[in-house]
């Protein structure tokens, strides 16, 4: 039989008719449309049982209670914990995006040792046993040479048992060089020691105050415990409490205050003293709280007449008088101290002036006032038994010279580390342990810090994340992140009451990491003798339970322990002499006509915990555009320098230079330019690295001679069109 054309066509037509009457085309069409709308590579999150587990957030010093929503074993969302004494359900964007840190690509997934050159990024995975052996052998070697003091440790700003264990390890080992990164607590030390003449911390009874005078404190930019500040701010709005924000730049805090008082940068102390003088002359003060009041008053009235203060600060006389009247006549006024997030200490002069203002209003240790309270002291371990080598090491001077200055106001002067290492004094550091800190990015003069660290022969990082300091390390022994571990979270952050939160594991460790507390105890045990003897606990959890004692049960139950019955340490204020040195910005006016000031925003993390992808996503395109960072400049100044919105320019300071883009804003004083803290990372991941400029590359420490602390608030700068 031959198949001719007609038969073939007939076959095709028959086939077509049959096909049309079969489900093939229709079902195929349906299925392909489904396929095209549900690409198989789009993830389908598995369903399961939803449970909530409560814990404490320790990503910042705020100490918020959080509820983690889980589906089976996966943590899927972090929410604020309702009824928690600090945040009562509210939560900030860093806390919300904690799961991006837990599951994110920035985690260090196992212990590693460096293979290539420093900073090259070549690592070899090793076992925990090998890592601990490397560490303990290296430390043993240095110690046997009688150079125990040449080992230093840098810890993050947080308190609690883990930093205390690190410090204890150092003490038992024989090194005095335990240093902390700058924090609100470290910034408060000089206030307590220098002005109250006692040790302790500051508490602000914000919720009960009825007049707030903020000297540049970022009430809404991350100062103190951020969520508590947001809640307090809303409460002030409801109760019509005046909030006066004194600042050079219209920050978020200034924008939402009841009044923004624009001031010349670095003159906050003058304004505070000027207000004090007006209050005194109008007899609106309670003098009893100031020691040596008569002499101080005489000097103050003579040295700080409103006209002169107005000239220095740029605040009109009538405004100064108005502020004095407002502050003086309010029932429970409160002045806040600490620029931006409050993590850098101001000058003693500024601290003293603002504290004196509070004392003059009679609010010290009063409702709605400033409280000087003792530190939470639940860590009561037996004194370390030091052997001969340790005692010899401990008798050496501290590397940063803290505690030896005439003032002795600060326990840690970490900003000196770069200068000292690079200047090779007082001795050479042999090893550095870094935990919960990222000094290579976060300390001022970061280029100096990097150069200095590269001279230390052995660096160990306990960081959970691929930060800049971990990139410089020789040995990585990654810690769990907060959602994977038990840890105490003592909250200071400007609270009046004592609060300790408990961090609990809500998911099992995602990678081959170890609890830092565990690593420290293991290391101590491996080193034996008195060092092992200083760590009598079987493991970290035992240590934590024993340390917290009777608080443990309530912490396990509610997640937070609080004590409103605080011990106040002082009431009388001893203001610094009025001739205390003024801290000025580095650089000379002629070569650097502009003034660069750093600013903080809650949307960008400026500490060891890097900003998450979600946080970076919220950052405006006038702060980051592609890889470029922006400087804020007043249109008037921009015009005078031939700069327009978005122009690329070179920003130069005495410390360094950077390529920036210009953003014109009216809310900044002419002649001043501002740049955000927390950008310009080189490590972490592609969501954070290589965006913007690290302001610490451009700014260096300026030491306040009266306290030894870094009191830099800005630096001279110039902008050239690129």
């Amino acid at each position: 039989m031959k198949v001719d054309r007609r038969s073939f066509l007939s076959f095709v037509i028959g086939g077509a008719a049959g096909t049309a009457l079969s489900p093939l085309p229709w079902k195929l069409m349906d299925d392909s449309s489904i396929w095209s709308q549900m690409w198989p590579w789009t993830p389908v999150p598995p369903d399961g049982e939803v449970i909530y587990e409560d814990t404490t957030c320790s990503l910042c010093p705020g100490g918020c209670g959080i509820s983690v929503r889980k589906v089976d074993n996966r943590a899927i969302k972090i929410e604020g914990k309702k009824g928690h004494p600090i945040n009562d359900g509210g939560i900030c964007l860093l806390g919300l995006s904690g799961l991006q840190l837990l599951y994110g690509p920035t985690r260090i997934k196992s212990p590693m040792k460096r293979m290539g050159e420093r900073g090259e990024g070549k690592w070899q995975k090793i076992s925990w046993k090998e890592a601990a052996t490397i560490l303990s052998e290296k430390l043993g070697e240095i110690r046997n040479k009688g150079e125990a003091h040449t080992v230093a440790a840098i810890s993050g700003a947080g308190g609690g048992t883990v930093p205390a264990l690190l410090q204890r390890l150092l003490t038992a080992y024989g090194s005095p060089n335990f240093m902390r990164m700058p924090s609100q607590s470290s910034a408060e030390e000089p206030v307590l020691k220098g002005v109250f003449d006692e040790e302790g911390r500051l508490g602000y009874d914000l919720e009960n105050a009825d007049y707030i005078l903020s000297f540049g404190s970022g009430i809404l930019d991350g100062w103190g415990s951020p969520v508590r500040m947001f809640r307090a701010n809303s409460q002030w709005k409801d109760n019509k409490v005046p909030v006066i924000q004194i600042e050079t730049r219209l920050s978020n805090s200034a924008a939402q205050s009841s009044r923004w008082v624009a001031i010349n940068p670095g003159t906050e102390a003058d304004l505070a003293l000027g207000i004090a003088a007006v209050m005194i002359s109008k007899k609106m003060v309670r003098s009893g709280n100031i020691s040596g009041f008569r002499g101080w008053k005489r000097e103050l009235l003579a040295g700080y007449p409103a006209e002169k203060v107005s000239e220095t600060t740029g605040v009109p006389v009538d405004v100064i008088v108005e502020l004095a009247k407002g502050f003086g006549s309010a029932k429970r006024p409160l002045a806040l101290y600490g620029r931006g997030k409050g993590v850098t200490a101001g000058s003693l002069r500024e601290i003293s002036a603002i504290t004196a203002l509070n004392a003059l209003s009679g609010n010290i240790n009063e409702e709605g006032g400033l409280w000087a309270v003792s530190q939470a002291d639940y860590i009561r371990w037996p004194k370390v038994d030091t052997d001969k080598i340790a005692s010899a090491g401990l008798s050496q001077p501290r590397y940063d010279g803290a505690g030896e200055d005439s003032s002795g106001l600060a326990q840690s002067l970490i900003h000196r580390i770069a200068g000292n290492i690079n200047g090779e004094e007082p001795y050479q550091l042999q090893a550095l342990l870094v935990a919960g800190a990222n000094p290579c990015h976060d300390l001022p003069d970061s280029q100096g810090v990097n150069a200095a660290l590269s001279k230390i022969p052995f660096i160990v990082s306990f960081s959970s994340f691929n930060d800049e300091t971990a990139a410089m390390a020789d040995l990585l022994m990654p810690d769990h992140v907060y959602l994977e571990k038990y840890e105490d979270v003592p909250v200071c952050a400007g609270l009046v009451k004592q609060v300790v939160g408990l961090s609990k594991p809500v998911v099992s460790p995602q990678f081959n990491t170890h609890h830092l507390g565990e690593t420290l105890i293991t290391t101590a045990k491996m080193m034996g003798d008195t060092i092992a003897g200083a760590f009598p606990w079987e493991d970290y959890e035992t240590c934590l339970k024993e340390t917290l004692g009777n608080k443990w049960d309530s912490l396990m139950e509610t997640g937070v322990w609080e004590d409103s019955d605080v011990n106040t340490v002082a009431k009388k204020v001893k203001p610094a002499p009025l001739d205390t040195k003024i801290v000025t910005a580095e650089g000379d006016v002629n070569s650097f006509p502009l003034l660069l000031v750093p600013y903080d925003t809650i949307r960008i993390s400026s500490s060891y915990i890097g900003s998450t992808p979600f946080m970076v996503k919220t950052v405006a395109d006038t702060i980051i555009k592609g890889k470029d960072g922006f400087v804020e400049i007043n249109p008037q100044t921009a015009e005078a320098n031939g700069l327009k919105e978005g122009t690329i320019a070179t920003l130069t300071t005495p410390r360094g230079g950077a390529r920036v883009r210009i953003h014109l804003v009216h809310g900044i004083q002419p002649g001043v330019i501002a740049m955000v803290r927390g950008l310009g990372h080189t490590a972490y991941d592609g969501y954070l690295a290589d965006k913007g400029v690290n302001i610490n590359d451009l700014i260096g420490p300026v030491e306040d001679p009266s306290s030894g602390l870094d009191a830099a608030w800005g630096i001279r700068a110039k902008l050239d069109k690129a």
Partner: protein
Amino acid sequence: MGTLDEKAKDVMDDGVAHTGRDKDTGAGGLIILFFIIGFAGSMVLGWVVFPKLLYSQKQQPFNFNHALHMEEVDNGCESCHSFREDGSFTGIPKLAQCTDCHEETMGESEDEAIFVEQYVWKEREVPWLSYSRQPDCVFFSHAAHVIGAEMDCITCHGHHGETETTRPYEYNRITSYSRDIWGHNISGIAKNTWDTMKMDDCAQCHKKAGVNRTSSVQTERDACFVCHK
């Protein structure tokens, strides 16, 4: 060359002649025959071969006897497939629920032995393949149907509780949906309410039950968010 050409022409002429001759007798039949072959072939392809190609089969980890379990429990389906405190539905039970009874083997069955040895003792969840899983874009509330509308399980799941074996899990190679969504009849026609689980089936049942509201501005039917997420 010339001869060959001529021959070829002869053949062709012959062919033409033949066709011409058969025009009124056999050609129509042949055309119809080819039509029928084409038609029948494609029908077979579409109705029989296509479904076989479209769907792939997977075996369940081991056999599960629903009928047997139904005899043992007091509360029917809900004994194992229950609601959680938050109103969500557990679906296929987790291992923990099974181990309440099956910490050790209870019977003689080979499947139970697999279960206890491979899963209970090793504390592994059984990777059951869910026949009734709707795609990710669907929000289905068991609470609304079972508690709210007091429907029974059979309406949608059929007599699954009476089965003694677990049939192979079939899924669509293109969409990766379970075959139960479209139904086992490739034409998509359902005899029973549980035969298919498509969007139209939801809509039809809602209409029948009178819960069809006109909250949607677009369709004057149930709003999209009632069943979608």
